[in-house]
Each structure stands twice: as structure tokens, then as C-alpha cells.
């Protein structure tokens, strides 16, 4: 649905995107991940025809963003970093205006507006001025505006920023529900969000793609070690050395927390499960076992791993 080929963008002499290529399949929800200033927004602005690329090409639904700009724009719903609201308009008038300029015809106008108002939970503010809305509700109106013409492709730049936790969950569900029928690209810094909503992730850093895969594949790419978190109560001088002696454990880090509570961070290879052995050792030393858990690698680790290189 979206084909980005060798995309390069210079702002003056500053390079924001350097030969970025990727494709997004129809119906896919793609997460766009990267630290501040990585070039996420820039890439999205080019896909939505707001900016022209310095080099390279972008095709949406087979149409070039440069040659068939208007046709591409009909197929795209876009939420910029700051929701583009006319503060002096009511939510109703604003969404009607957005629908009009996006080519929704007159007889479907009311229905389209009602649908997005419903989906984004805006009915309570339907007749309020945009100026009077809180940040989160402005964001919702921005999302509603992007979806009002039922576009094939949704480009959302940090869609859940400024929303409350409940709303975040709702919007994520909404975005997820868009997948399948629509193609969605969303950028975010919130890593669990990608885990929850996206099938595939593209991580960019300094204007280049550093990783591109499904979230589970990205996980398995990392060095195969396991982290175990152990918390005990009691006094033992020998536990540390006994733990280190266990087959499969690579390193142990001891951290005396408060009176009598000690925390161990254990790194083990993931061929054998060392947890039963650890539990036995702790009990054998006559200590109280408070917590023993497997801290598997999160997307954070992957993210830090690939962007720090």
C-alpha cells in the first residue's frame, strides 16, 4: 500500500532522512519508532504530501506522492504532531469542514461526521468551540478529522500523546480495529503501545532505518540471555557464591536494599531454567524467598540496543 524507496530529505544542509526504504502492506498496522529527532515526522510529512522529498520516491496505492498528489491525498488521513484545529470553530463545524475539503459528498457528510464523533468519544463536546477543549480532547478531534473521509491509509503522528490512560486504551483499540481494512502507520515513543497495536515495527535513528521486523522477531534477534530477579529476606554471606556456582548462571549482581532485604539480578543463559535451583538454594540457606521472577527482554531493550549502536 505504501512503498517508500530511497527517501532522502534535507532541511537546508541538515539531513533528516537518509535513503530510507520500506513498504507497508495493505491492512497492516505499522509502528514507527525512534528517538527524538530521528525523522519520524519528516517521513510522515512526505508520505502525506505535505513536504516534497529531496530524493527518492513514495508511492501510496500505486500512486506517486509527487505526480498524483491530489489522488494520494484523497486516500490518506493524517494526524500531524499538533492537531490542526481551527480554534474558533465548534467541533461540529470543524469536522464538517474537514469532511468537505476531503471530498465527502453532501449526502454522506452528516453520517461521516456522526461516525467519527461516536468512535472518538466526542459527542459530549460536539457543540463546543475547539478553543475550549483540553489537550486530550483536541487530540481526539485531530484523530476524528483524520478518519472522517474513511481513508485507505491512516498516518498518525504520536496519536496517543496527551490522552488519559483509559482513552489511550480506547484509541489503541480503535487504531487496531482499523487494521485489516485500512492501512495504519503510527509513530510513537511509547514502546508498549507498539507491542499492543502494531504487527510490525520500523525503528529509525538519525534518519536511517536501523531495524524492521515483527515485534516478536525483533525480540529473538537479541543476545540469548535471560534475566532473573530474586528478592530474599535474611542474612547470608554465602548465598552469593552459592548462586554463582549454579550451572547455567553467568553472573550475579547483589544489591543490599534495606534491613535484611537483598535483591539479586541474575543473568543466565536460556538453555536451562535455573529458577528451581535458585529457589532450592535460598531455602537451603534458611532464607525467606520473597520474589523470584523472569524479567524477559522488553521492547525497551531492543530499542536501546539498536539505537545506541
Amino acid at each position, binding site marked *: 500500500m505504501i512503498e517508500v524507496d530511497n527517501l532522502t530529505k534535507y532541511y537546508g544542509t541538515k539531513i533528516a532522512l537518509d535513503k530510507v526504504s520500506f513498504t507497508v502492506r495493505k491492512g497492516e498496522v505499522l509502528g514507527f519508532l525512534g528517538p527524538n529527532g530521528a525523522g519520524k515526522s519528516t517521513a510522515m510529512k512526505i508520505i502525506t504530501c*505535505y513536504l516534497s522529498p529531496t530524493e527518492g520516491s513514495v508511492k501510496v496505492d500505486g500512486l506517486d506522492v509527487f505526480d498524483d498528489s491530489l489522488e494520494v491525498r484523497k486516500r490518506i488521513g493524517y494526524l*500531524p504532531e499538533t492537531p490542526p*484545529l*481551527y480554534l474558533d470553530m465548534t467541533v461540529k463545524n470543524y469536522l464538517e469542514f474537514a469532511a468537505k475539503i476531503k471530498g465527502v459528498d453532501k449526502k454522506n457528510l452528516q453520517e461521516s461526521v456522526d461516525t467519527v464523533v461516536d468512535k472518538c468519544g466526542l459527542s459530549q463536546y460536539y457543540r463546543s468551540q475547539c478553543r475550549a477543549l483540553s489537550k486530550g480532547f483536541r487530540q481526539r478531534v485531530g484523530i476524528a478529522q483524520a478518519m472522517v473521509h474513511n481513508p485507505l491509509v491512516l498516518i498518525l503522528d504520536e496519536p496517543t500523546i496527551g490522552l488519559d490512560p483509559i482513552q489511550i486504551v480506547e484509541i489503541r483499540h480503535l487504531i487496531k480495529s482499523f487494521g485489516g481494512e485500512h492501512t495504519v502507520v503510527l509513530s510513537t515513543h511509547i514502546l508498549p503501545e507498539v507491542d499492543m497495536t502494531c504487527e510490525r515495527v520500523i525503528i529509525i535513528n538519525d534518519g536511517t532505518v536501523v531495524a524492521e521486523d515483527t515485534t516478536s522477531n525483533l525480540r529473538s534477534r537479541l543476545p540469548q540471555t535471560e534475566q532473573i530477579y530474586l528478592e530474599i529476606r535474611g542474612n547470608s554471606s554465602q548465598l552469593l557464591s552459592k548462586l554463582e556456582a549454579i550451572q547455567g548462571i553467568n553472573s550475579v549482581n547483589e544489591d543490599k536494599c534495606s534491613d535484611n532485604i537483598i535483591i539479586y539480578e541474575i543473568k543466565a543463559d536460556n538453555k536451562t531454567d535455573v529458577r528451581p535451583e535458585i529457589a532450592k538454594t535460598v531455602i537451603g540457606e534458611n532464607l525467606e524467598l520473597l520474589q523470584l521472577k523472569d524479567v524477559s527482554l522488553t521492547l525497551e531493550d531492543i530499542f536501546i540496543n539498536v539505537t545506541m549502536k
Partner: protein
Amino acid sequence: MRNALAVYVREIKSYFVSPILYIIATVFMLVVGNSFKDYFIRFAMMTMQALRQATNSGGEVPLFNINSYVATNMFAFMNYMFLLIVPLLTMRLYAEEKKTGTMELLMTSPITTTQVLIGKFFSCLTIYFFMMSLTIAFVVIMMIQSNGKLDWGPIFSSYLGTFLLGSAIISIGMFFSSLTENQIIAAAVSLSIIMGLWLLIHSARYITPPYNDLISYFSLSDHLDSFTYGFIGINHIVYFISMTVFWLVLTGINVESTRWRQ
């Protein structure tokens, strides 16, 4: 067409919800009204004096023309006021959208730069027309005072001249609004350019022929005079329309080029 209309309607509504239009319109009416009052009283005293003299000396009562004593002055004053006011009307057209980010909505929607431009231009021209129409009140007063002897030709042509002037200076204001996201800068620069083009005629006399004719050709004021005297010259109409189109095209090019200039 439908897109341009949507933009047009949105802009008109936006003018009417902001207090600035009401403030500007009020100030405009107060100032133009006050100058009208001055011209009008001077005219009334002059006619009265002449009448007294005529009755005393038994001579004939000279005819004073209300058109040339009041209407012409009023229109000149109104045009001058519009030079100051229009930058305040046009400053927000693009600058505000750039500042608040709504430009990003317009530029990523299936609507062309030209459609946006046309919607915006005509919305401002409508507001201008609306303010201009307020002065019909003064024309009615003149009509009553002159017992219907008001000459309608110059009145009509003067309004036409003011309207054409409006379309030219609105397009200038729009261009400078599209250059910046700061409305104050947009207004200040438009005002200087409009004033410059207005006063250009005065610099013409320091320039050797044949360039002085060229300079005065570009001056806004030079093309307005004949309208106030009741002449509708095609060349002057062509001047104002080409001026409008020129600045509008420039605005369109500028807006479209922001896509690759960033």
C-alpha cells in the same frame, strides 16, 4: 469549486466570530463618518453664505455641487482609510494557519492551493465590500440634503474604484501573510508596500522621462482619480485586475513552494 466554497464560508465565519472585524468596522465608520460630517458642514455653511450674499445683493444664487464638495472628499478619505485597514484584515489569512498548524490540514487534503487561495481572497473581498457598503448611509444623507440632485454617476464609479482598489490591496496583503507566520509582521510589511505603491506617484516627478511615466503607472493612487470624477477607464480597470492577479499568483507560488523549500 465546492472546495473553494468550503474555505470561503469558513473564512467568512471566522471573520465574524473574532472581535477584530467589529472593532475595525466601528473605527472605520467613526473616522469616515467624522470626516464626512466636516465636509458636509463646510458645504452647508458655504451654500448658506452664498444664499445670504445672493439675497443681500440680489444676484443669482451660485450652484454648489455636493458631489465635488462632499462625495469626492469622502471617497478619497475612505480609500485612504482602506489602505490602513486592509492589512489588518489580510494579516491572518495565511500567517494564522501557519502558526496554528492548520496549514498542514489544508496542504494534505485533496484541495488545491488555488482553491484555498480563491476561497480566502473572496472571503476578504466580501468583508471589504460589506464595510464599503456601510458608507451608503452617508450617500443617503447627501441624497436627502441635495433634494435628489445628487449625481449618481460619480458615486457609482467611485464605489467601483474603491472596490477595485480593495481587490488589489487585499491580494498584496495576502501575499505578505503567506510569507510569515507572524501576523504583526505580515500587517506591517503589507502596510509599507501598499503605502509605497500609493505614494509612488510622488517620486515620479524626480525621475527623468520616460521612466517617470512607468513609475506613475505602477502607483495605485494614479489609477483611482478618474473613478472619483465619474470616468470608468478600461485601462484603469485592467491595471487593478492585473495587480490583483499578479499578487495572487505570487501568493499561490509561494504557498505551493513551501513544500520543497523547507
